[in-house]
């Protein structure tokens, strides 16, 4: 099956044409925002990181920023650095440029401050954005799609309706040769034995147990019951009592396919089909990791409703709660509450989600895109110095 996408020179397929204004460090975020605000066709986000980081934590932040620039939805990137930060603009530039995409950089210190950086930045961004206008969509196969699976603001309907329906849609994407990513390792706790049975090799099975154990050890090292953070107060109000119950509901969104590999945070899949990425349950850190890993689109189930979006990838919101669909319709793209009402089957709603994925991949705007939402958060794994 085909959708209408943009074929890139490196062979990858994008579903949006974004010119990304990428701040390397928090100190450059405001300047990047001022540039993006003046140029149509650009996107940006603010983040807190890029400096006073070391080791694996620094690497993870670098990989994430570079991965966002490499995402096939990004046609060109203008990197805005400060000049003295740990993860310099040049390092990110080299990592993105390798994919053969137009990539340029400006350091605020080299440009002698705000005014000249913005002036030059706006000129570069306008030139970059102009080239995207001429690009035409063409038929691309679903096998080129990487869909990130996410759930957030869960309630009981997530495990009964929205996640099983998204699981059915995930199976359809995979049947067409595409790729889906299950993330949120925290929400595998208590359900890992079920997922691990679907591993394609003993190594993949081992890796599933390994990432769950690693997450559990990190949580236990804080000496706090994680019940104070997971399930969240909203989850509990919605009827979810324990992390095990939440996890068992969460994994339904990965359907029934075999698990091909387990990726680190922000890593690009090397296999097609269903893969797992090690991310926290924090929605925005999780989707940021999957987008850095090349997901062009996120399918996001929610029980209680959430407006979250992304600068780079469209986020399709699906609720299994009929009340949430009524009250937060402006933020929800697909109503899976019909399963709870007994009007549709899981399979029927799964088909509707799959159709929505194809439409959004072909250019239909999601609710989060219409609002221009662009949340972004990098998962940190080390101290800030």
């Amino acid at each position, binding site marked *: 099956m085909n959708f209408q996408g943009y074929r890139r020179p490196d062979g990858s397929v994008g579903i949006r044409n974004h010119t990304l204004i990428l701040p390397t460090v928090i100190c450059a975020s405001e300047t990047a925002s001022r540039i993006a605000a003046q140029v149509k066709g650009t996107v940006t986000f603010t983040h807190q990181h890029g400096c006073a980081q070391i080791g694996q934590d620094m690497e993870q932040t670098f990989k994430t920023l570079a991965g966002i620039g490499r995402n096939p939805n990004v046609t060109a990137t203008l990197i805005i650095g400060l000049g003295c930060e740990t993860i310099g603009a040049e390092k990110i530039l080299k990592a993105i440029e390798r994919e053969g995409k137009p990539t340029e950089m400006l350091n605020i210190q080299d440009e002698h401050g705000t005014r000249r950086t913005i002036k030059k930045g706006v000129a570069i961004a306008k030139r970059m954005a102009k080239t995207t206008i001429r690009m035409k969509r063409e038929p691309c196969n679903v096998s080129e799609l990487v869909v990130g699976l996410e759930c957030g603001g869960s309630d009981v309907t997530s495990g009964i309706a929205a996640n099983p329906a998204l699981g059915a849609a995930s199976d359809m994407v995979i049947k067409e040769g595409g790729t889906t990513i299950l993330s949120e390792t925290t929400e595998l706790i208590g*359900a890992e034995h079920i997922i691990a049975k679907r591993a394609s090799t003993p190594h993949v099975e081992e890796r599933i147990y390994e990432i769950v154990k690693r997450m559990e050890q990190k949580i236990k090292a804080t000496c706090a019951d994680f019940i104070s953070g997971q399930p969240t107060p909203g989850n509990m109000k919605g*009827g979810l*009592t324990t992390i095990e*119950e939440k996890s068992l509901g969460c994994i339904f969104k990965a359907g029934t396919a075999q698990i091909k590999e387990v990726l680190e945070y922000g890593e690009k899949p090397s296999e097609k089909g269903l893969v797992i990425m090690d991310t926290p349950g924090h929605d925005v850190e999780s989707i940021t990791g999957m987008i850095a890993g090349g997901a062009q689109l996120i399918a996001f189930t929610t029980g209680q409703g959430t407006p979250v979006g992304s600068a780079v990838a469209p986020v399709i919101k699906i609720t299994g709660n009929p009340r949430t669909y009524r009250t937060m319709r402006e933020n929800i793209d697909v109503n899976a509450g019909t399963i709870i009402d007994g009007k549709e089957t899981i399979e029927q709603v799964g088909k509707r989600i799959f159709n929505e994925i194809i439409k959004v991949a072909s250019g239909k705007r999601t609710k989060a895109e219409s609002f221009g939402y662009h949340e972004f958060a990098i998962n940190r794994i080390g101290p800030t110095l």
Partner: protein
Amino acid sequence: MRPARKALVLHNRDNVATALSDIEVGTLVIVKVGDQTMELIVNQAIPFGHKFAIENIEEGQPVYKYGEKIGKAAKPIKVGQHVHTHNLESIRGKANQQQ
């Protein structure tokens, strides 16, 4: 009274049901457990999405939903009672405790 579709049992090993609408105290609820149908009186108000016991659960015994353990009973739970944070605790979510 409309007893149908008020609550859902997701697996025949489960000892709790999930309310699909707000259920008032004293409501007679019919649930399907596998091929069997069972009737029970809900003796506490159950909000939409919350769980209630469909059999007596002793303190320390596992609570099953989706056919899997979701934690253990922190105190004895009787048929028809609300099952939530006051009487069901996580096994995996506790600090400094081995499974």
